[in-house]
């Protein structure tokens, strides 16, 4: 009797009470995103136009794909500083193939494959040599960039193949093909993280690798797949990018790795591993993008853009840290 009574009491206690503070911290990035959206809509009549929205999504399609995969890397407790370099290599290989073969699908299709291979290389190095991913990918990014420079011979590879720009510039029903590619890629990553055995392993490996190992999870294999996916995403993004500018440039991806980490962290995924979500990273990318868009629409000094983005990232991360402490 007392037993049963006790349980009901505890159940009532355990029922989650709505707490405004916790809600704000949990959904900080979405609230910020909504506020910026409202502000832009009020301040600039040209913001909520079909053209502007489609443009923002199109411009950010490569970064959205990279950040969606980057979420896995951060949740697994790692960093991938080589995505920018992989993007460069994949784009250059694609351009070189286009010039050499004049085949659009072969050349654009090569980029994801190059990305996948380089990502797998990263994962293998990290797990076999037991090097921290931060160092391993910092080093591999230098190697990859050199490869890209060697392929181009230090210049640009200009592509004139007919139809090569299909992925970057063409539209279907007024919407860029790149956006469709991005939506599909992001949806796959989202499902992968939330619904699959693999996604669960990524959380476990990032949260407590020893517990994961004792639970029968192949920790190294999980890490290799995470880095392979990250490389693959960079390759897909590179295919969009190279198709858009119709030229292979070794340094075209420079800085993407940091933009991706910034977006993932701004979204609320913890760099300590074990916690995070793909939707958070999407919101992170879009928030940074909208701030940039706002500067353009309202003719603000573009030199201040980065500083404002930096302040917002600090605020969001600080807020999350304060929330953690309270628990």
């Amino acid at each position, binding site marked *: 009797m007392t037993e049963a009574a006790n349980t009901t009491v505890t159940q009532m*206690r*355990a029922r989650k009470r709505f707490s405004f503070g916790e809600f704000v911290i949990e959904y900080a990035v979405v609230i910020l995103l909504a506020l910026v959206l409202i502000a832009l809509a009020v301040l600039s009549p040209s913001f909520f136009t079909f053209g502007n929205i489609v443009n923002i999504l199109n411009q950010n399609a490569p970064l959205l794909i990279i950040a969606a995969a980057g979420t896995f890397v951060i949740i697994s407790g790692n960093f991938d500083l080589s995505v920018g370099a992989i993007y460069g290599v994949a784009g250059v290989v694609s351009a070189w193939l286009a010039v050499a073969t004049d085949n659009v699908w072969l050349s654009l299709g090569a980029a994801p494959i190059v990305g996948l291979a380089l990502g797998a290389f990263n994962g293998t190095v990290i797990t076999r040599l037991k090097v921290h991913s931060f160092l391993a990918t910092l080093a591999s990014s230098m190697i990859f960039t050199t490869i890209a420079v060697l392929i181009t011979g230090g210049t640009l590879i200009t592509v004139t193949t007919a139809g090569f720009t299909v992925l970057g510039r063409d539209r279907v029903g007024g919407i860029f093909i790149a956006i469709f590619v991005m939506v599909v890629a992001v949806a796959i990553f989202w499902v992968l993280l939330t619904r699959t055995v693999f996604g*669960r392993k990524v*959380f476990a490996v990032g949260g407590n690798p020893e*517990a994961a190992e004792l*639970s029968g999870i192949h920790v190294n294999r999980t890490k290799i797949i995470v880095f392979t996916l990250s490389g693959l995403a960079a390759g897909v993004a590179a295919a969009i990018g190279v198709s858009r500018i119709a030229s292979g440039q070794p340094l075209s991806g420079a800085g993407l790795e940091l933009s991706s980490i910034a977006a993932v962290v701004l979204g609320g995924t913890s760099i300590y591993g074990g916690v995070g979500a793909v939707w958070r990273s999407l919101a992170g990318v879009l928030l940074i993008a909208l701030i940039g868009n706002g500067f353009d629409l309202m003719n603000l000094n573009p030199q201040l853009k980065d500083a404002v983005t930096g302040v917002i990232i600090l605020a969001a991360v600080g807020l999350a840290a304060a929330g953690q402490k309270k628990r």
Partner: protein
Amino acid sequence: MAVPATDSVIVELQNVEKRFGGTLALNDVSLQIRRGEVHAFVGENGAGKSTLGKVIAGIYSADRGTVAIDGSPVDRWNPGLAQQRGISMIAQELALVPDLTVAQNVFLGVEDHVLGFARNNLLERFAELEAEVGFGLDPKAKVSELRIADQQKVEILRSLARNARLVVMDEPTSSLTATEMKQLEQLMLQLRDRGCGIIYVSHFLDSVMRVADHVTVMRDGQMVKSVPAQQVTKETLVTAMLGRELEQAYPERPTAPDPNTPPLLEVRELRTDTGVEDMSFDVRPGEIVGLLGLVGSGRTECLRAVFGVDPMVDGEVRFDGREWRGKKPRHSIEAGLGFVSEDRHKDGLVLQRSVRENIAMASLASRASAGIIRTREEKRDALGFATALEVRPPDIELPVGWFSGGNQQKALLGKALAAKPKLLILDEPTRGVDVGAKRTIYELIVRIAEEGIGVLLISSEHEEIMELAHRAYLVSEGRTIGEIVPSETSVEDVLFSLFNVVPKGASAA
């Protein structure tokens, strides 16, 4: 009620409330802590005794109510302010810098300095402090080389170096041997006699009865009793903690399997480079087998090697009729060999993830089609285990790190059971677990044995093995030195064998 001299009150709590997420951890607690008194907080895991200690030490801030120090309420309260007011905390997980020496740790942050340059007088200051308490610690020893009991002394000295008037000790005894526990009790009494106040958060009621002057009993976040220790007995404490009478501590041992049943696990002359020299034993289906030995005897190391965490150097292991060497934990789990490790924080649970995800973690593939998790089935299974094991609060979506130690342990057991083991290795399954949860775990052990699962049990509380196991092996210095039938042997005999020096080569192979 006699009103004590108010000047002796260091801390007074009034109507304190503390919430974690939606859980009410402290509900309207009002309490006085006096100097020169050992004040014990007891209660089941999750009752709020630890939280209460942490509110006093400034680790947590109260959501409602007031904390008054020396009669005046504080508006801001954190560990730094608490230390300034002479209140320090010794946490369950010690917070020392392992690579610094004892003296450096003791005076860390309170070094004497001249214009920012540390003065080289640590040893003299240490000697002064040591003269007062007489712990007999070597000031130059590295903390990482000390035993946990000595590390605790360093923590206590550290508090004293900061002129602590009140020391909050959160479950300080959970990783100590019986002798070390007695030593710590002596220390507490010593500190008390110097006029220091001590808050002793513990679930060792025997120990509490030995040292406490005042006892506060917590249950479900509420203070159910706060009285001088003379007014309570161990029995009345348990009744107050549980809100009901305690049933018999141990359930009945299940029937032993037929001795002719072929063993499920056979270990012969196992040797590892982690401290196992020569161990041989076997376990039959449905049998509960204990390994009796002291901490550091090689019990845990042996089982880690069998499960596949550490490599085997020599010897033979057969599981379920198959040679079991060079296997990884994932092979073991797949074949039906489960392992519940002794340290749930280190290698047991992923604290940030929910109870549901933790329970599911070792058996993900069994609830997935083409790599996609069948969410509904997972929820149902996890809820099933959480309910059977009486996980409280019964919300499996909360991060497991938010739960109390006993409930975390239940989640860990749930994870092992969800993988449907044929043989389950339990390494200290009741460590840091309160009376009520212990009984639940014992019943579980008996139930799974009745279902035909073999159980290999390690416990520092030898009584558990003596009461539950069908057979037990004595382990000393990495060797199995004998086999006993617990129902026919007394704990005294076992301890006698374990502490006796056994000549080399007398192993029970």
